[in-house]
């Protein structure tokens, strides 16, 4: 198993590039020590990590999965205590994710040469340190073999997002956006952490898969539900109820990081960060982490249909909700931000709808086409001298053809047009939800309907964006004379452009249905793996424990319907915006446009909640503390000071007063003693 001994190196390489860059940032500030401000160490590290990841992928194919505890972080003596460890789990799912993350991160590093170095940004070592730590944290999360380790790297991912979104800290906007991103996701992570603690308290372990002497909590949960587990503490609840509670708690973190309703508000603000960072956050790290977590512990979620239905419903709702907001945005990155929220909604929809493979498939294709779209947007932003308003663009098609054609490839994939990647994966998401919904879960059908409707909006906003940016006549001076971009921008775009067009061929389910050829490679890949961590096991659980049944429904009809919706959206956009000087048609929507443009006033609501709720309680507590709690303390001291000041008046300093008091005292004493002793009786 020699190859797997190098698995930790995948995490350590970017961490090393972080150390190099941060060391330079601290000890050699302002001196140009690192070549390209730290980009080269980063690129070398990511290239190495990518090669190793591919090697892991190949080795998993050849030898099967690998799970090894590497480091015991903390452990207690004897029975009934917890052993908290770090371990590496490289199976079909994580090997695939490793390749995606390292590839996207490498391309983002290369692209940064064009976006940051060529634009003469300062603080480059800090930037590349952030990218390195971000990649390392995400890779550590991907290979985590237990929930606690996953949580730890999940939090580090949050830290890195704060560092990178707030990269331009001298301006007021980015630090504020960074704070919001961290706080909103922290709110989700609060529930996640309760979930982690609950998993330990319930099962005594948080391993994803049994290893060594340690059991796995999804397996224990399955045994508890099928009636053969012992030593599981469900805190007085029925096992299924308690597992639903735990599952929903962990889901809190997922909703936060994957920007699902209602914790999606941080993501559009996060556009304040440098564009390559947005690509990294949206495509391969951070936002992907949430969905990956559900996939990672799908053996647990597949046992609890109530939670699955909630996941599907949140996903379907978010997909539609975010897509509507994307329709009216003016900035290119804002459109992409809402499309990210929407697309992750699809992945959640698939996971909740029983489509483990579909969700993973969409995670992969989305990683490629969304990274592409962000980098393409980055290229446009360079060209436009950092003006992001699409209404100032137009006509860039002729002036930057490489960006245009690759961006088009990504847009076709996002809109779900045959035969681009997004078509295949989105179709499978919808199909899986539909058949399981028809199989007897009406809530899934509602989620499916929302997802399907979102396809139309997706097609519309995507091509509104493409047409406004690249077609028509230039609407500003910069659009007429855009800034050129170099190979370091075009190279990553071309790689991703090809992938956005072709990645869907990894899983051609409709083709298989049509021709009988065995071409659902991803499906086969994910159906192999460790005994309790593979797609086949999950589908058994879904069927036997969660009671999911798939209705017989033709995948071709489903695909045709969703393609039809997408084409309708694209067609409408084409009709309205394929014009040399298009108008703001969305203005005709009136109040609806305002509602969408202001994001359903969700931001206002949450700011109100934080300010009147959080700060209000804080100010009230402060008043209470100063007035009442400390008031009592000072009151006690004033009482003693006051009584002291009164009593001290006895000490007048006049001798005759003392003599009088003395005499009086003796008399009183004698009378008292006399009464007591019976003299006067």
């Amino acid at each position, binding site marked *: 198993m020699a190859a797997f001994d190098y698995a930790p190196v995948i995490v350590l390489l970017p961490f090393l590039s972080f150390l190099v860059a941060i060391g330079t940032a601290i000890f050699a500030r302002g001196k140009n020590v690192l070549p390209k401000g730290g980009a080269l160490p980063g690129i070398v590290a990511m290239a190495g990590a990518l090669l190793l990841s591919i090697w892991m992928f190949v080795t998993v194919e050849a030898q099967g999965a690998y799970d090894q505890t590497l480091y015991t972080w903390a452990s*207690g003596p004897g029975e009934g205590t917890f052993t908290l460890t770090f371990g590496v789990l490289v199976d079909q799912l994580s090997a695939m994710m490793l390749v995606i993350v390292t590839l996207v991160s490498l391309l983002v590093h290369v692209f940064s040469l064009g976006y940051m170095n060529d634009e003469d940004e300062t603080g480059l070592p800090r930037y590349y340190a952030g990218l390195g730590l971000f990649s390392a944290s995400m890779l550590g999360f991907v290979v985590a073999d237990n929930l606690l380790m996953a949580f730890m790297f999940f939090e580090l991912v949050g830290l890195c997002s704060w560092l990178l979104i707030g990269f331009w800290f001298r301006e007021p906007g980015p630090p504020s956006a960074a704070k919001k991103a961290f706080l909103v996701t922290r709110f989700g992570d609060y529930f996640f952490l309760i979930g982690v603690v609950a998993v330990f308290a319930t099962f005594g372990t948080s391993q994803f898969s049994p290893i060594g002497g340690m059991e796995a909590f999804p397996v224990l949960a399955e045994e508890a539900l099928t009636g053969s587990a012992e030593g599981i503490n469900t805190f007085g609840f029925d096992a299924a109820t308690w597992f639903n509670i735990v599952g929903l708690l962990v889901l809190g973190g997922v909703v936060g990081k994957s920007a699902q309703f209602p914790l999606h508000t941080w993501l559009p603000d996060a556009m304040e960060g440098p564009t390559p960072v947005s690509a990294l956050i949206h495509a391969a790290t951070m936002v992907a982490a949430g969905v990956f977590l559900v996939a990672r512990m799908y053996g647990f979620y597949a046992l609890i249909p109530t939670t699955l239905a909630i996941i599907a419903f949140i996903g379907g709702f978010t997909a539609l909700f975010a897509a509507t907001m994307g329709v009216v945005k003016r900035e290119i990155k804002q459109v992409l931000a809402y499309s990210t929220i929407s697309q992750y909604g699809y992945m959640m929809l698939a996971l909740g709808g029983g489509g483990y493979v579909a969700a993973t498939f969409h995670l992969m294709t989305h990683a490629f086409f969304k990274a592409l779209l962000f980098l393409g947007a980055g290229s446009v932003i360079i060209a436009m001298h950092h003006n992001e308003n699409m209404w100032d663009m137009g006509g860039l098609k002729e002036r930057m053809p490489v960006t245009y054609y690759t961006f088009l490839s990504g847009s076709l994939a996002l809109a779900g047009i045959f035969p681009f990647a997004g078509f295949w994966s989105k179709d499978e998401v919808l199909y899986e939800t539909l058949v399981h919904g028809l199989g007897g879960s009406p809530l899934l059908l509602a989620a499916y309907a929302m997802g399907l409707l979102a396809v139309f909006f997706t097609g519309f906003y995507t091509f509104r964006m493409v047409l406004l940016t690249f077609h028509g006549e230039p609407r500003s001076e910069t659009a007429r004379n855009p800034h050129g971009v170099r190979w370091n921008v075009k190279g990553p775009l071309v790689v991703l452009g090809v992938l956005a067009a072709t990645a869907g061929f990894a899983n051609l389910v409709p083709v298989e249905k049509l021709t009988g050829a065995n071409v659902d490679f991803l499906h086969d890949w994910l159906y192999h793996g460790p005994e309790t961590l593979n797609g086949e096991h999950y589908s058994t659980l879904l069927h036997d424990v969660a009671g999911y049944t798939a209705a017989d429904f033709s995948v071709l009809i489903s695909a045709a319907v969703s393609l039809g919706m997408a084409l309708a959206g694209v067609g409408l956009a084409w009709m309205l915006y394929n014009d040399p000087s298009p108008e703001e048609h969305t203005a005709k929507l009136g109040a609806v446009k305002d509602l969408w443009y202001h994001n359903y006033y969700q931001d206002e609501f949450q700011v109100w909640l934080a300010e009147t709720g959080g700060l209000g309680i804080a100010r009230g507590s402060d008043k209470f503390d100063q007035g009442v*709690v400390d008031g009592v303390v000072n009151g006690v001291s004033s009482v003693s000071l006051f009584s002291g000041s009164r009593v001290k008046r006895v000490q007048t300093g006049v001798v005759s007063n003392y003599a009088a008091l003395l005499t009086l005292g003796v008399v009183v004493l004698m009378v008292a003693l006399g009464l007591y002793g019976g003299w006067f009786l």
Partner: protein
Amino acid sequence: MIIEILIAFTLVAALATFFAPDRVSGKLAFALSLVPVVGSLYMWSLFDASGNALLQGSQVAFETNMPWISLGGYEIAWHVGLDGISLPLFVLTTVLTSLAIVSAWTPIDTRASQFYGLMLFMEASLLGVFSALDFFAWFVFWEAVLVPMYFLIGVWGGPRRKYAAIKFFVYTNVASLAMFIGFMALVFALGDSVTSLGLPEIAQATRAGEVGSYFGLGAGAIKTVAFAAMFVGFGVKVPIAPFHTWLPDAHVEAPTPVSVMLAGVLLKMGTYALLRFNFTMLPDVAAQYAIIIAVFAVVSVIYGAFLALAQQDLKRIVAYSSVSSMGYVILGLVAYTLYGVGGATFQMVAHGLISGLMFMTVGVIYNTTHTRMVGDMSGLADRMPVTVGILVAAAFGYMGLPLMAGFAAEFFIFVGSFGSQTLPFAPLFTALAMFGIVVVAGYLLFAMQRTLFGPFRLETDYTVGPAPLHDKLPIAVLLLLVIALGVAPELFWGMILDAVEPVLETGGGA
């Protein structure tokens, strides 16, 4: 012997520094304070204790036990020694004192020799508190800590230093009185079953159910009264809300190095004593009133955090956040599980390092900007990048970022308290207390965003530039320690659990 040597050496060092010329006293104090640091680390490397120093079947490390005096029918011994609970705090004290002394070089410019002398005197007393195993010596050390602290705040403090110093002294002294009465009631109620004031003997007797009736009160009542008196007495020191109001005043007025010691070590005296006295000697009372104690804990966490959110003074923010963080310790203790009590002990060390780091870093900024008010400045990251970088790291440590000491401690406490059998509704209390991790992120991120980032702004007529190296080194060292303890909690975790485990085995009549 080594404990006596270190305490005696520190006392002599204090005296020597006290009479040294002001000019050299800072460097001298630092050099001398390195001896206890090396000594305590050497003790850590040799550490071979097992079990809990107060309970049966233990082997105490570096123990000395010799008869001393006889008082009112009780034998008093000079009894010192360390177990897995006290050694980490012993090390924390020496390390933090040394670093605090370096952090004083910039701000302390008057009566320097007296300042450093008092710091070392305080260190000696603190080492005594954490190592004494006989009540008499322990109480002498306990009270001796107050004296230097009073002068350190009252002489070198801010504008309202006299108010703060007197408030601190009176408040904690009244609390000591309550604690003393409570403990003595317990000792007298033990009657003839104890013949000394040795803490192990008393602890073992109370756990064996030897408490009788005294002063007209039954055994149960006397235990409850003693527990309550000691809980309030130690609770003031911790401080547990609502006994915390001395703390922000003391912190705001105290100079930076004194705040470091106050938050880093002095507060831990309270939780250490709670563990040693209340939870080791009277676990049955603790279990009986678990819900009330847990309410105190949760209120401290949440109320303290919201108070921090309302503050504008960076030092006040950190001061209130200590109330919040120490609330976790109480939660861990009342949970009465291995990870709960162990995590509480770990949190004492972790919070000692992190709060020390926060105060020190805020102090470095104050040295340069001469203001600590959030609204007075912005964009400091531009002018002092390394200090700001460390402050950011420290703040994330405070928020419980994984792989830093605070996360380890808090996670241990949470995972320990969630499944507690002693505390009813344990999951609910745990979940409520955990909300502190959201509020802490709120107030620290808000404060950082407003002071450190954005365009540089500070109305001042002096230049604001990078801090001197001797300001930055101690915070860098502390940060590395925080990370080391977060990556490898086993540096202390094993020995802590070893000493905590016997506490949880409630024997005899308990």
